[in-house]
């Protein structure tokens, strides 16, 4: 210690200073307003301008609302009632309420069906959405819901969805059975399945090659582009002709070889089983049972679905399918196996590079060419496939971001404890990666839900299709815009805001890093 210090620097704190409340002007409304609205001359001006705009809006819209006419049969009657005053014609919503919700072709005496399906949806979604508070055995309701909802919405015999459910359970049992078999029995199955799958694949490739040759011939050679296209198709065709037998043998042999560890043969056998059951047994069996114990609702074809119901159906189905598919794609893209990785990358990049409308047109027009006439997929199903593909590619990329954000140590810790890939992914990696991805997934889900209105361009009558088509083109309600589109916007806003609030709540629930 130098002599310049007159006193010692040693110091001991002997009392603990008690906590005190902050000064009064640092709390409450006044502080909030000072900090958020009037913290400087620039912010003060902004606040005043914003206040002015809000007041003008309210003053402008308020009479329109208050003078709104709820009871009229046409836009002309509305105008008569208003007598030149500013006012909305909400009567259109009352008059066309059913059409806005269910479309104009859904049988009117069956409106209770979608309403019941919607109520059940809320009940069935609860165990999945609030899984931390509801015992997991209630998830059975979630699992059964699609079958019930299908029956309610499309009608027909109840035995059809029941048979499909039974076929899925049976396939699960077959999977377990083949997995648990001894190697000899499995080798026999593998040989059988290998031969059938090999032959089947070879036959399909042969058909494809012939088809390609036919296309090449019909493209012709008039003009440079056609010549190139024709040659390309010929090349593909020859390639397929050369390889259809080796591919069949290769795949068949690969299945046969998998008998020992049982991975491939188990999956292929299960797929075979469910294909046979759905393609050959579904119709006859459910028909037979129905003739003995008929439980039927009036069947409604997909073309007759419409209104906001169609948006809800597409939104619910596509969101719940595209999240699992997105997870699989994201994991596939991270895979060390080049083939799986390649397929996933190509799929994601291709689908992301194409506008959704294009895919919907493909669903509407093109897919019909790929299936034999009469056996074509249902239009609703085709649209679902396209929207699901589209949004799953986006979700896959969101989840990939979540996977990449996990520290490498998490993978290592899971490995070092002896967890295998499936366990580590399911228990350690995905819960964390999905949690990180929630905002992104919700972003895609909300976007998807609103994109369901795009089906109006392929002449499906969803809520926008209904407004643009049957409602506004009727002489009664011509040139009614604000009320109708406002209502559509409100419907979407309620659902999307709900999704957003749920996701924020979920994020808070999953927060574990502080008390």
């Amino acid at each position, binding site marked *: 210690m130098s002599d310049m210090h007159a006193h010692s620097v040693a110091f001991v704190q002997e009392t603990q200073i008690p906590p005190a409340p902050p000064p009064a002007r640092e709390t409450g409304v006044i502080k909030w307003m000072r900090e958020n609205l009037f913290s400087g001359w620039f912010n003060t001006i902004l606040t005043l301008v914003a206040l002015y705009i809000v007041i003008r809006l309210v003053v402008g819209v308020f009479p329109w609302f208050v003078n709104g006419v709820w009871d009229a049969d046409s836009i002309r009657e509305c105008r008569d009632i208003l007598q030149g005053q500013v006012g909305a014609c909400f009567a259109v919503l009352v008059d066309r309420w059913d059409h806005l919700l269910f479309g104009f072709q859904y049988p009117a005496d069956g409106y209770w069906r979608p309403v019941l399906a919607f109520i059940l949806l809320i009940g069935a979604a609860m165990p999945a959405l609030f899984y931390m508070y509801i015992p997991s055995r209630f998830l059975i309701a979630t699992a059964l819901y699609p079958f019930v909802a299908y029956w309610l919405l499309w009608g027909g015999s109840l035995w059809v969805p029941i048979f499909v459910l039974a076929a899925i359970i049976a396939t699960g049992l077959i999977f377990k059975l083949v997995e648990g078999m001894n190697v000899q029995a499995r080798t026999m199955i593998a040989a059988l399945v290998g031969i059938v799958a090999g032959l089947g694949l070879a036959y399909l490739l042969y058909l494809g090659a012939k088809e390609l040759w036919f296309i090449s011939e019909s493209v012709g050679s008039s003009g440079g582009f056609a010549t190139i296209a024709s040659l390309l198709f010929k090349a593909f065709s020859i390639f397929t002709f050369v390889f259809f037998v080796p591919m069949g043998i290769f795949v068949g042999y690969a299945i046969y070889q998998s008998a020992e560890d049982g991975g491939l043969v188990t999956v292929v056998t299960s797929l075979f089983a469910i294909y046979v059951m759905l393609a050959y047994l579904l119709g006859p069996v459910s028909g037979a049972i129905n003739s003995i114990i008929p439980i039927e609702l009036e069947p409604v074809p997909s073309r007759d679905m419409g209104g906001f119901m169609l948006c809800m159906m597409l939104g619910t189905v596509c969101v719940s399918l595209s999240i699992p598919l997105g997870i699989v794609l994201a994991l596939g893209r991270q895979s060390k196996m080049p083939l799986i990785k390649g397929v996933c990358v190509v799929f994601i990049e291709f689908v992301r590079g194409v506008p959704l409308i294009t895919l919907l047109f493909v669903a509407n027009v093109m897919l019909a060419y790929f299936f034999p006439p009469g056996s074509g997929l249902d239009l609703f199903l085709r649209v679902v496939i396209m929207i699901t593909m589209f949004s799953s590619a986006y979700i896959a990329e969101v989840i990939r971001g979540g996977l990449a954000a996990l*520290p490498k*140590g*998490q993978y*290592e*810790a*899971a*490995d*070092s*404890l*002896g*967890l*295998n890939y499936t*366990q580590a992914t399911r*228990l*350690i990696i995905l*819960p*964390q990666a999905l*949690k990180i991805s929630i905002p992104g997934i919700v972003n895609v889900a909300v976007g998807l839900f609103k994109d369901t209105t795009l089906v109006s361009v392929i002449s499906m009558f969803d809520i926008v299709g209904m407004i643009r088509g049957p409602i506004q083109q009727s002489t009664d309600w011509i040139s009614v815009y604000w009320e109708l589109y406002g209502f559509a916007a409100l419907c979407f806003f309620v659902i999307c805001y709900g999704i957003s609030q749920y996701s924020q709540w979920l994020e808070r629930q*999953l927060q*574990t*890093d*502080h*008390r």
Partner: protein
Amino acid sequence: MADAATNVDTSQMKVSDEVAISIQKMNKWFGNFHVLRDIDLTVFRGERIVICGPSGSGKSTLIRCINALEEHQAGTIEVDGTLLSSDLKNIDKIRSEVGMCFQHFNLFPHLTILENCTLAPIWVRKIPKKEAEETAMHFLAKVKIPEQADKYPGQLSGGQQQRVAIARSLCMRPRIMLFDEPTSALDPEMIKEVLDTMIELAEEGMTMLCVTHEMGFARQVANRVIFMDAGQIVEQNEPEEFFSNPKSDRTKLFLSQILGH
């Protein structure tokens, strides 16, 4: 450096002549970089080995090869009689027998402390949940934090997290424990609580391989100290000899640098 002043009870710390790990002519490359060169190492059951050396010398990589977190490209590694090959079944078997603690703990942040400890026993060992929880509480009591069982890792201090990580490994009842710089990310105050836990483990006769710079720990607990440099084992000896009478110049330089202040 935390000088663990605890008296170490050596009564149980016997080394048997049963071989726990046998590494022969093991080589590893990261791309073109030759990280581990001709590693020969035999670890007997009950041995406590401290591996030290400058950073980049390959000591972490060496112990990470033992449970196949890193793949080796040449030579053989045999753990408890199981040959480490690319066969996934062997790898999973070895991993469930070998516990590991990491520098950054790597606890699972989305699970509670108790769930962290019961996860692997339930899913890998297929032990009933109740039994796994009892085991977990036993080991959490052993590392002296049973009262934290229902908290999440993010709510614990670094030293507590590392002790949970040790308990998590012990719940698998491993026969060998690997420690990869377990105290390097901790405050000095917390180093001691982790080292005490490790000393306790050693006293019970656990086979341990420990990459650490805690020379006090090495002196007290280890029965062999290995010094690595540039991917090779340069020197190995009993701790007394190693510290008081290092043979190679590289070892002398290293010791003078870490013990010099």
